[in-house]
């Protein structure tokens, strides 16, 4: 299990990286390497050129402005996990990271790497989908921004062109006090999810849901949003019967199966995990203060 030969490039700037990617044949970008190198060791991936983004400082780090949080694609998962500001503004990310791999892989693994790898059971793409994140991409033809809904477009495939690099993720945090939950079932601690559910909720001062987001991982060839479930939530005050109805809608998907569980089991898990996520998100939600005249 030794990788096939390749040429290694460690560009110091994004422009240089993009130029390399555009000109070299069979080139592959390496971020944290926590999935790619394993695939290279198995020789499932055999790039002729490896372009390491590790020396491009501008790709790392968290930047907040008034509305938007920008996370550089090379930001290590560990940094996101331990960021107090993120825990406050986007608590769903931190909740999901508790399920992502192991300490040793989070120390190296990056947000951008996880999104570009696009494993359908992975937590981070699911959370980004739930948050309506936007993916900032730079390629030889210039920069563009792709909504997360359009970013993953099949089993481990994304909207990234062969000459494009994922640069950053833009997230608009929800109102402080919103409800959030990430629930997943994995066979063991840190394994990819068999299935998982990310839920975000916000309600008005009467507890009526004004905004909802429900995303699932592990049930289809990519993370999916459950629009019907969200529509059914808005305008409701949550109780067990609504939760049951919404979870049932969420779980009503064309699921795919693999050796860790067939489609029936995954639909079942989608329903159960959505139920739990709705309950937890609801319990965490602080309703808005009644506006005083």
């Amino acid at each position, binding site marked *: 299990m030794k990788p096939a*030969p390749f040429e*290694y490039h460690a560009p110091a700037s994004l422009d240089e990286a993009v130029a390399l990617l555009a000109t070299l044949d069979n080139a592959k970008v390496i971020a944290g390497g926590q999935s790619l190198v394993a695939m290279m*060791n198995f020789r499932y991936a055999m790039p*002729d050129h490896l372009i390491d983004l590790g020396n491009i400082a501008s790709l790392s780090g968290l930047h907040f402005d008034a509305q938007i949080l920008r996370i550089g694609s090379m930001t290590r998962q560990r940094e996101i996990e331990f960021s107090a500001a993120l825990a406050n503004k986007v608590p769903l990310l931190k909740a999901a990271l508790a399920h992502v791999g192991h300490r040793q892989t989070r120390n*190296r693994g990056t947000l951008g790497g996880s999104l570009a790898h696009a494993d359908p059971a992975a937590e981070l793409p699911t959370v980004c989908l739930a948050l309506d994140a936007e993916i900032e991409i730079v390629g030889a033809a210039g920069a563009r921004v792709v909504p997360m809904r359009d970013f993953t477009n099949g089993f481990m495939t994304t909207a990234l062109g062969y000459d494009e690099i994922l640069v950053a993720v833009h997230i608009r945090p929800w109102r402080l006090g919103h409800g959030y939950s990430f629930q997943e079932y994995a066979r063991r601690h840190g394994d990819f999810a068999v299935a998982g559910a990310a839920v975000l909720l916000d309600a008005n001062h009467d507890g009526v849901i004004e905004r909802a987001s429900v995303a699932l991982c592990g049930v289809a060839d990519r993370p999916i949003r459950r629009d019907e479930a969200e529509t059914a939530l808005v305008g409701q005050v949550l109780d067990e019967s609504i939760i049951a109805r919404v979870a049932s809608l969420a779980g009503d998907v064309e699921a795919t199966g693999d050796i860790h569980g067939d489609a029936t089991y995954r639909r079942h898990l989608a329903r159960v995990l959505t139920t739990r996520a709705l309950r937890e998100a609801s319990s965490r939600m602080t309703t808005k203060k009644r506006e005083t005249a």
Partner: protein
Amino acid sequence: MTTTHSISVNINGQTYARVVEARMTLADFLRHEIGLTGTHLGCEHGVCGACTVLIDGRSARSCLTFAVQMNGRTLTTVEGLNVAVGLSPLQQAFQEHHGLQCGFCTSGMLMTLTELLSDNPDPTEQEVREVLTGHLCRCTGYAGPVRAALAAAEHLKGIKGAA
């Protein structure tokens, strides 16, 4: 097509300059180029954790990293844990609490626990177990390593308290 690269890397306090092939993993580099065979390879796909080392103080899989990426980095391997008087408190605790049997996975566990105890000197059993999920062990059933980690934490707290 194969390229080589000159790298300089600090390992356990000593600087090594070597020419490496791009595809050489950090694990093979440590084991075969530097001769630090205490870092073991159990799966070469990043799950078992036997190859865990510290890169700039952070635990990481040396099978999922290429040596060429380590230029200018500071590494610690299990050989760097010993202190002047012999075993470190964590290593001693592993002996005292039967934290190892065959010893093959042990190096990796020691590296992860070194990082944990420096970040969090007072971990709970659950926290110890969670970081150890990054390591597969077929011999111990984990009771010994968990006991050893908690005992080492107690011991280190005692040293700090006395200082």
